[in-house]
């Protein structure tokens, strides 16, 4: 048995052993979302950038890609996982103390260093809030390095909003958090309508501002239009892409979008990088 292959750092297919240390319900119902706090066993947490992902492994089921849901400035890794297929159904059955495999950090994250001194606007929908949460946590933890922070987030109903407690706390602390739901509900004090409409209403100033959007494809598409109307240039807008992924290291070709591997060259892309492609992502 070769030593190289036996070492997770050198064999990128070999997962780190990790333990689930906390599970929080984010969304209940038929499309539930849970946030898992995960600790590596026998080693320190690896360093990573907001926006990077990991492949979580359940032997016997397979592996799935998840964006890391919290900021590298926080102690443990968190992943918010929608129950949707083989691996995620198994993960949703798991309990604190159960073991999973983890490969990462993978891909290219957000260039948060480049953004120093800029205002940050995150525009999220549904579970697409995950990478954006990592950004706002990072910006909050390094507040002096950045300008104004605006968190725009919406979901179909109030029950579909992730990280509700955290967001309420931020509102209490005076952060600019703009929530929305698609349809009216009794006692909902915030905006009612789609995320891009809320963005239109809020009208963030494009001057010295970076906008990052993540959510369902249709929401991203409309949001991009609104941002352009507001005067944002393509190089001020970032998003993350999702594709089916297997290897996570730019080999297997599953996530290949033309000459670009989403798992390796992304999942974070600046909008002008995507509009240069032949096929519209």
């Amino acid at each position, binding site marked *: 048995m070769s030593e190289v*292959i036996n070492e997770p750092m050198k064999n990128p297919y*070999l997962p780190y052993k990790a333990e689930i240390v906390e599970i929080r319900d984010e969304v209940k119902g038929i499309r539930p979302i849970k946030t898992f706090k995960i600790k590596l066993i026998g080693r320190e947490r690896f360093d990573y950038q907001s926006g990077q992902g990991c492949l979580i492994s359940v032997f*016997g089921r397979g*592996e799935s890609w998840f964006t890391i849901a919290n900021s590298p400035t926080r102690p443990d890794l968190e992943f918010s996982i929608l129950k949707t297929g083989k691996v995620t159904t198994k993960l949703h059955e798991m309990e604190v103390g159960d073991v999973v*495999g983890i490969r990462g950090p993978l891909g290219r994250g957000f260039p948060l260093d480049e953004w120093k001194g800029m205002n940050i606007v995150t525009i999220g929908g549904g579970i697409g809030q995950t990478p954006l949460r990592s950004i706002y946590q990072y910006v909050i933890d390094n507040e002096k390095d950045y300008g104004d922070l605006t968190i725009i987030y919406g979901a179909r109903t109030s029950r579909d909003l992730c990280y509700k407690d955290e967001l309420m706390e931020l509102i209490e602390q005076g952060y600019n958090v703009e929530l929305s739901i698609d349809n009216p509900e009794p006692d909902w004090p915030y905006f009612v309508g789609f995320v891009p409409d809320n963005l239109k209403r809020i009208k963030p100033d494009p001057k010295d501002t970076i906008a990052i959007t993540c959510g369902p494809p249709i929401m991203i598409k409309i949001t991009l239009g609104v941002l352009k109307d507001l005067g944002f240039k393509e190089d001020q807008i970032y998003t993350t892409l999702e594709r*089916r992924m297997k290897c996570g290291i730019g080999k297997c070709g*599953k996530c290949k979008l033309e000459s670009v591997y989403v798992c390796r060259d992304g999942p974070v892309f600046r909008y002008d990088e995507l509009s240069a492609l*032949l096929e519209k992502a």
Partner: protein
Amino acid sequence: MKVYSGNFLKDVITRLLEEGYRVYAPVKEGNYHVFRVVKSADETDFDYINTKKSPKEVTFPENEVLIKYGEWVEELPEQPDRLAIVGIRPCDVKGIRLMDRVFLEDITDPYYEAKRKNLLIIGYACNQAGDYCFCSSVGIKPYSSEGVDILVTNLNGRQIVEVVSDAGKELAANFELTDASAEDIEAKKELEKKVMESFTRKVDTENLEERMKRAFDSDYWREVATNCISCGTCTYLCPTCFCFDIFDDGELKGVRIRAWDSCQFPLHTLESSSHNPRPEKWQRLRNRFYDKFYYMLVRKGELYCVGCGRCSAACPVGIDIAEVIDNVPSEVE
């Protein structure tokens, strides 16, 4: 340039087997040849234009165990010590070199590397182009010694041996080789000229990048895909198609396997949400041609087609890569 009086290819196999190599060599099975692990030189047959399957499976097997698991990782597979492939054609050597760029550049793939770094390559120059061959159109010489350890050429029944690498030198030291005469050298040049003239297919790669870029939204791709059945024949036989899937075989105890996959399969890119970036067969077909002649050119600076013609020869519905690329419209409305 040296001359060997016997059958160098067969004798080298015998020698390598004695030294404990795992040797892949062409074996005749029914109507065609394939590379198989051989136990003796007697099993081999070198009378072929090229093999049915490409030899990519030497370093990138159709199925490969990555991890054996129970509750957790239990074992990782042993990797072979010394491998040799004997009788590989120059187009397929180029195929291996293109695979190297996928698996060894950027993050190294350790499973591929373990086999590749121990692989000895004994090439076999072509004396005639096959009916589907067009390697000369994609910048490959069918007698090229690029990337081999030793290249063997059949010259009027005698074997010309070109020792290229240090490993090749070491191996060649075991054989009685004499220097090629001026006549031999002249005759080999003649042969090379003759091979180049034997191509019946040519692909116009002039300005191809620009043509491909412009033709992306052309209806041409729907027309080409009319008969496409979305099978994996082209990709599985191809020496440079590298897409793979990873899956677990066994619920409580089993193996994590990587297996060839094909961008032509509708389920290749299907996401759990039901979103599929390439749901239509013409999009998948277009993807393969663009990957070979445009995307990889953008990413790696090289065409990912070596002109072996296997896909054209085997396509069940007669889709022909050389024709398809040659006919890419230069003007698109």
